[in-house]
């Protein structure tokens, strides 16, 4: 399972992820991290059996946790050209044998590189 963590100003300097790993023993994989002035956002992946305990541990430490689908392919807008396939850094997008384009949610790291490449604006990064 993937989750997006949002840290506020005070929390960015604390070793929160390390603390959660120690507490839950969950092998957390950091897929993407971005820290701006004041806030931080980290996309993590945890095994499904540790998902519940990990999320509650982060929430207890005052971190905003968002789970669910982040990248969405709008079927009615997509023309299946395949341009997005070439800009994906993790090969999460592929064309099926009938040329239908699909995004593999398990591989996607929510980076958004495909969003501005799509000529019909058929890919949405939902908040």
């Amino acid at each position: 399972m993937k989750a997006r963590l949002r840290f506020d100003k005070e929390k960015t300097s604390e070793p929160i992820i390390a603390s959660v790993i120690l507490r839950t023993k969950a092998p957390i994989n950091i897929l993407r991290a971005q820290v701006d002035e004041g806030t931080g956002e980290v996309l993590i992946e945890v095994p499904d059996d540790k998902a519940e305990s990990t999320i509650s541990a982060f929430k207890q430490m005052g971190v905003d946790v968002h789970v669910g689908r982040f990248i969405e392919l709008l079927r009615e807008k997509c023309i299946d050209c395949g341009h997005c396939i070439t800009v994906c850094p993790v090969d999460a997008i592929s064309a099926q044998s009938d040329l239908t384009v699909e995004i593999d949610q398990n591989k996607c790291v929510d980076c958004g590189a495909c969003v501005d490449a799509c000529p019909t604006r058929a890919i949405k990064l939902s908040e």
Partner: protein
Amino acid sequence: MKNIRTVDQINEKISKGTINVVTAEEMTEIVKSNGIEVAAKDVDIVTTGTFGAMCSSGLFLNFGHADPPIKMDHVNLNGVEAYHGNAAVDVYLGVTKMHPERNFDYGGGHVIEDLVAGKEIELDATAYGTDCYPRKSVKTTFTLQDVNQAILCNPRNAYQRYNAATNGRDDVIYTYMGKLLPNYSNVSYSGAGELNPLTNDPDYETIGVGTRIFLGGGIGYVTGHGTQHDPTNKFGTIMVQGDLKQMDPKFLRGATYTNYGTSLYVGLGIPIPILNEDLAKKTSISDEEIKTNLLDYGIPRRGRPSLKETDYAELKSGKLKLKEREIPAQPLSSLKIAREVASTLKKWIDDGKFLLASPTQRLSVTEVCRPMKITKEAVFVQNIMIPTVTCNIDEDTETVARRIIEKNVNHVVVVDDGGILKGIVTSFDITKAVAKKEEKLSNVVTRQVVTASPEEPIDSCVRKLKKHDISALPVVDSEKKILGIVTSEQISRLLGE
């Protein structure tokens, strides 16, 4: 070549329901397994199809007269400006015209898509008022059914073949060939290869003025050869028109190219009558036989050097080999919808709903496509670059500071013994270093240097300076050997001349 059937005989078979029509992809297979002679005897018609962004597209609209009447002077449709330099209530909406606020997200192509989808469009027009047309403004809404005529008219469609694109620069570029990643990391191309209309009739024997075609899900016509038609280089184009009221939003879609512009995806299919064995052979063309060049769109010039010759079989495989690397390659046009165009046209013919039309005139086979005539030459880097002051990475900051004063420059380029670019320091970097008593040049040097090439236009340098917020570009050759420098001071001086 002796003809084995005529268009009239073909139409008779369509009406009787005894026609044999196949798509161009199927024809390639049929000829491969049965040979040309048998294929020519069996197959009456080959349907082709393409679904690509066609930027020359546009729409003529006639709204009918208001009461009191108006001679429209400025016209916006859903906020997108339409061309109004024709009769009082006629306009032409170009697909690349963008909405002033929504920019790349909404343009003329999207207005056309919305119209075909049956959506209501806002019309906002103003006028100066005349004795016969006194009205000075009109604001209303309309749908496709409310206008008298809506004629899709595309002066340049269905390129015979097109270049494939990649990017050799060290940053992402956004082009009409899509988003191109740095350092040759992806390839985009256009066209449906063996399914492409003009590719199957490369000498325009059956496609000419008056040919009836599939256009945007409706029926359209070829009205002549298109703009930039270049038959001697096998870069032919056609001009087409069709009634938008018959069309289907599935085959006409607004397009957005981030940081480039808007366009319209157009589904276009042409039936090719197999009048003789020669046409059977031509329509059996396979992706392997359709060659095109891979060009570096990172070079901002008209003439881009070809990195390699490729073919549509390699492109459609999804991977393209370039210098020992395999690069992901995908089209910007949709092969899936191109197939739907060819199979829909095939079904129309099978169902007896679509008859072939013989051209009244052939397309030009001698026309030449010339570049723009320029009366004042543009300025390139090599015209204004100056020698650069250099230093070695082992020199200390004080020595470099002295050199900056002595040579009266703001930029010193760091090179190795072979003159290869290794970094750059500005007078500001050196001032800061001296003030902080930092002696080591290696601690203050910028190693990621944005550079220019001698053949690059100055306009492109200005974009780089602005994008990276820097004040100079070292000029290097392909081996990164330093040739000179272009600074913002020199460029400002050009403006003063």
